[in-house]
């Protein structure tokens, strides 16, 4: 059940690269959040920041009273978040929203794949999986090393991590490493977010190995709770892709099966 509140900001500081991290005190949201769900934050102070801004929850405190959002400075809204929400301020936030990741029962080893801001959706999943005793392998990519957000969380959990950056390895793909590894280690599930190209690549591997794969999607949102039909994407209604339908990312997603969201080129 989503909750809307004026929650206390407990910290807001530059994280790494283009990212900032805001920490918000909300036992209501943090307490019931599932990995992959998101929050919708109202930004004020700008003439044209009319909509709320949707963000994955980056992490939840161990006592589940506070949540963190890792946000990339993109435009006016995120810039205002970095200047108008200092510790002690109130933040108008709604959450948890949407449908999160699902971990198959008896899963022993999963692969999480992310690029850019998509990586910010992975740590809550990682925390949950590690808590269940599942082995997590990370594959993340970004423009440059400073934007490999969450790399520290992988090492904190002692998870294996393969990184890729455009500046260090121009032309290469993080999924090349993933497919190489696949021939040695069997995974029970794949999770991917942040780039359509990655989603397609992960989907192909999932098909080949017969393993479920989920992708977290993004779309511009107006309401964030399924009322306006504004945030739809086109999805496959069946695995053959013979019939298509529009689905709200905020309500049916943001997490979808990869077979739902890959297009004909997959």
């Amino acid at each position, binding site marked *: *059940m*989503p909750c*809307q509140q004026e929650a206390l900001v407990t910290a807001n500081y530059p994280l790494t690269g283009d990212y900032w991290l805001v920490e918000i005190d909300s036992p209501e949201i943090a307490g019931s959040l599932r990995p992959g769900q998101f929050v919708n934050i*109202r930004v004020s102070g700008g*003439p*044209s*920041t*009319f*909509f*709320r801004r949707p963000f994955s929850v980056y992490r939840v405190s161990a006592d589940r009273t506070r949540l963190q959002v890792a946000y990339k400075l993109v435009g006016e809204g995120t810039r205002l978040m970095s200047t108008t929400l200092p510790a002690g301020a109130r933040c108008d936030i*709604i959450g948890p929203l949407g449908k999160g990741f699902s971990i198959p029962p008896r899963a022993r080893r999963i692969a999480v794949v992310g690029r850019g801001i998509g990586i910010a959706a992975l740590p809550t999943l990682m925390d949950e999986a590690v808590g269940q005793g599942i082995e997590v392998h990370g594959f993340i990519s970004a423009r440059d090393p400073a934007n490999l957000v969450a790399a520290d969380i992988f090492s904190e959990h002692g998870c294996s991590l393969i990184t890729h950056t455009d500046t260090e390895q121009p032309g290469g793909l993080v999924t090349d490493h993933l497919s190489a590894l696949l021939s040695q280690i069997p995974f029970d599930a794949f999770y991917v977010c942040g780039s359509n190209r990655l989603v397609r690549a992960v989907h192909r591997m999932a098909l080949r190995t017969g393993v479920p794969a989920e992708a977290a999607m993004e*779309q*511009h*949102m*107006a*309401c*964030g*709770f*399924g*009322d*306006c*039909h*504004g*945030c*739809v*994407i*086109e999805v496959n209604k069946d695995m053959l892709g013979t019939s298509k*339908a*529009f689905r709200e990312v905020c*309500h049916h997603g943001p997490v979808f099966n990869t077979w739902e969201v890959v297009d004909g080129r997959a």
Partner: protein
Amino acid sequence: MTDLSVRIGGLTLPNPVMPASGTFAEGLAQAIDLNRLGALVTKTITRELRAGNPLPRVAEVAGGMLNAIGIPSKGVAYFRDVTLPLYRGWSPPLVVSISAPTAEGFAELAAEISLPGVAAIEANISCPNIEEDGRAFAMKPASTAIVVRQLRAATALPLWVKLTPNTGEIAEVAKAAEAEGADALVCANTILAMAIDPHSFKPRLGNLLGGLSGPAIKPIVLRQLYQCARAVRLPIIGCGGIMTALDAVEYLLAGAVAVQIGTATFLDSAAMPNIIDGLDRFCDARGLASVSELTGAIRHEETDEEDLSWLSPPT
């Protein structure tokens, strides 16, 4: 305690606040008690199944938003078999918004959805009319008259007609709807608009053009409602950019009997209950026994000293 109930034609609503078509769905019941609302208004239903417009379908602009959702309708059977039974679970009167590309199509649809449990029909005649080159029925008095006449003949339910703010002759359109037997008017739908991303040179909506809603349109639609209120005797429901109880009061003063809230709910899911509470407090503070006393109470004459105290903001 103020009497918040209002009469719209033959229908009495417990209070004057209801959702605007297309901005409300059952999901909102997770956030607010729908039984508090004056009425429930469905998203516009069409006979043919529609998928809607290209992506993205929403964009923000200063003081409002653009939408080109299209009317992704699941059709009449879905409404009858799924939506209607579900809505019977809530107490406020159910208003069903309908649309069709021809006057005859409108009439057939109105007849089909005149079902037990439906309290009124809201004809969204702001949509393109294929017999008029895609121009909306509500752009002209003559096309409005034709479609309202057919609708009136097709249903015995209270008939609300939703106007478009894109016409230059809204008072004449309102008169045409009144003359052909409409029971109430809704003023108004969104204003046709566009936005371009100056960095990518691309339109912000997949559909290029879309409807502007939110606070940006309030002064325009308020003016149009005022013009309609002076032209017709029909009850008018104000709709456009209402975010707060004081916005609603403005519409009532201009001549509205009730209001619809759209975009505000997207930013704050409790917008409607907050506006209801705010109207109650507003009337209390001014010693008004009934909210309907506000309807058309705009003052044209100069106020003297004593009257000004009446205008001080509510506490």
